């Protein structure tokens, strides 16, 4: 515990001169963020005393309620990228920003109707427990861990780079220092407090974010006498795209297959994201898992509606403040290119415009908190993939002790934290926009088909699931690497090889087909046993009888 307190002290010491040095930071933002850190440190200290076993570490001992878990999931989902990113997209192209929000949201009906309850009934710590329930441990765990670690790495890099840049703007900190602060805080939460601390940090942040977003949207609507259409009318009047803001843009209608492909990956990817699925094991039963989904989707849906108001409100109101732009032209024609900090800062400037520096400070602090919380959830899912899947079940083949697994997961947390900081620094000037999309594509093309078929189709065998999962993973990755977003924008080649950037429309059906084909042609004795074991799996997934609950150990 002493070591932990020391590191907190070190961190704040180390943060002080940096804040002072740049001198352009918002004082209220810094104060509020320090209050947030202090509060979450107390929670971590409290959680650390409750984190003794692997069950505590990975799943908070299964003692989170459905409502709390719903908030935590909403917190994981409403990352800085999705809040600032969607508001920014609405600011740039209006309607097109809505498409992303709806895609992210429609992951939830999929999760609810296909996986949530069965997942809780079948697994202990993460979704690999479920795919390995009746299929062979080693290949299923290796597949789940490879896909999960790849998804987590992509997500982590995207968050770290986006976050680092954001913090440079919001707090006037140096890029490297902000990345190191995020990494250090994340390591403290996860290392000492495990899932309990990570969940509570996420819950607090979600509440703050929902409150801040509600206030911001309310202030915007108030400026238009609570008439949303008056706000839209003003937005259309000042935006260079005019009424096209209200319609699907050229980026979408110009390539319908790509739009469709993106839509599929967004909707099915959620049910394959390791850090989201892991949250279903923190509740005590399938009934609580169900409650989690209803709360999570309500909060996420509500927050996206706020984001639309914030995005359109930013168009309508920001042009009245030339100080937010570097040389705004009289006809606003350059309002997209001259916004200080880029279009992702639209929501942040808006908070300053309608709520003054106090609201700006609050939103900046919450955004910083968001990044730390999301990154902590990712690190925990990564530690579970390494320690629980690869170490305990593949390398040690189930012969490791609880203590050993716990040690490995803590070491993994530290390694992942250091790695996240290093990758954040390495990728500072790289274009990382494709990474979240690729993470969703892999989740939808590898984890999702394997998970769904292994729990709902009797015929699924280890051979089918392994080949299908890896094919989906490889195809989606290769497609994105050869597409414009990486092949041209990152590697600097002249022409992309993939016809459009999003692989989902091919990679998801390919994975399903391959799992089916290599399962039905599997005549091995193992396959026969696996098909027979489906009956027991169904009984458990439907009734929860025999599942591991909160009092498992």
């Amino acid at each position, binding site marked *: 515990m002493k070591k932990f307190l020391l590191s907190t002290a070190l961190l704040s010491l180390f943060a002080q001169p940096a804040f002072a040095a740049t001198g352009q930071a918002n004082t209220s933002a810094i104060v509020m963020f320090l209050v947030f850190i202090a509060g979450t440190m107390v929670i971590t200290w409290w959680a650390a005393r409750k984190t003794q076993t692997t069950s505590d570490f990975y799943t908070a001992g299964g003692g989170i309620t459905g409502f709390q878990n719903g908030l935590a999931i909403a917190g994981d989902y409403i990352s800085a990228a999705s809040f600032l990113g969607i508001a920014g997209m609405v600011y740039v192209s*209006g*309607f097109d920003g*809505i*498409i992303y*929000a*709806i*895609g992210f*949201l*429609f992951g*939830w*009906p*999929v999760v*609810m*109707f*296909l996986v949530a*309850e069965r997942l809780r009934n079948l697994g202990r710590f993460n979704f690999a427990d479920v795919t390995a329930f009746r299929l062979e441990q080693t290949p299923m765990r290796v597949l789940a861990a490879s896909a999960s670690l790849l998804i987590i790495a992509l997500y982590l890099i995207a968050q770290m780079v986006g976050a680092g840049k954001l913090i440079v703007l919001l707090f006037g900190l140096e890029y490297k220092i902000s990345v190191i602060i995020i990494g250090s805080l994340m390591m403290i939460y996860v290392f000492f407090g495990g899932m309990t601390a990570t969940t509570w940090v996420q819950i607090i942040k979600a509440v703050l974010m929902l409150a801040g977003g509600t206030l911001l949207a309310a202030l915007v609507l108030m400026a238009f006498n609570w008439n*949303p*259409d008056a706000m*839209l*009318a003003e*937005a*259309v009047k000042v935006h260079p795209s005019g*009424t*096209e803001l*209200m*319609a*699907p843009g050229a980026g*979408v*209608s110009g390539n*319908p*297959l790509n*739009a*469709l492909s993106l*839509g599929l990956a967004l*909707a099915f990817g959620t049910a394959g994201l390791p850090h989201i699925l892991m949250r279903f094991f923190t509740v005590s039963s399938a*009934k609580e898992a*169900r*409650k989690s*989904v*209803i709360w999570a*989707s*309500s909060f996420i*849906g509500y927050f*996206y*509606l706020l984001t*639309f108001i914030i995005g359109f409100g930013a168009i309508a109101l920001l042009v009245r403040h030339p100080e937010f732009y570097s040389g705004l032209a009289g006809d606003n024609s350059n309002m997209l290119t001259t916004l200080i900090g880029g279009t992702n800062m639209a929501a942040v400037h808006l908070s300053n415009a309608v709520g003054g520096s106090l609201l700006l400070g609050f939103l900046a602090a919450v955004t910083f908190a968001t990044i730390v919380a999301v990154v902590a959830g990712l690190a925990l899912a990564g530690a579970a993939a390494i320690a629980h899947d690869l170490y305990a079940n593949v390398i040690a083949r189930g012969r490791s002790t609880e203590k050993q697994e716990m040690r490995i997961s803590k070491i993994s947390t530290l390694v992942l934290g250091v790695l996240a900081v290093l990758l954040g620094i390495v990728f500072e000037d790289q274009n990382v926009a494709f990474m979240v999309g690729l993470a969703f594509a892999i989740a939808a093309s590898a984890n999702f088909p394997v998970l769904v078929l292994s729990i709902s189709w009797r015929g699924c065998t280890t051979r089918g699931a392994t080949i299908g999962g890896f094919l989906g993973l490889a195809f989606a990755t290769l497609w994105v690497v050869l597409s414009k977003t990486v092949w041209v924008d990152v590697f600097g080649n002249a022409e992309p090889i993939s016809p459009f950037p999003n692989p989902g429309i091919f990679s998801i059906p390919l994975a399903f087909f391959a799992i089916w084909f290599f399962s039905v042609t599997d005549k091995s004795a193992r396959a026969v046993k696996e098909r027979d074991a489906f*009956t*027991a799996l*169904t*009984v458990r997934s*439907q*009734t*929860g*009888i*025999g599942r591991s609950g909160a009092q498992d150990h």
Partner: protein
Amino acid sequence: MQDTIVEKVLKHPKYAELVQRRTRVSMVFFAVALAIYSGFILTLAYMPEVFAQPIGAGWTMSVGVLTGILVVFSAVIMISLYVYFSNKIFDPLLEDIVKDVE
């Protein structure tokens, strides 16, 4: 030991009913969700002009923006309905089975 519990559940008269009804309900819900979502995506991809129209004379809001907002509500409503079905129909069935078996 585990096998006898599985067999007991399988022999329980309400188990087949539970599995059948729950599978049917979740499949119907999934199909509706997929229809709404793919309808939205297909319309914006292939018939963007439908979404571009204003919802009425004197309005700025377009059919697309309004549909988008309604689609957000539809997701939450579908999930709530599913939870309602689960609490009303499936949980009582499940409780009976668990009580008899354990």
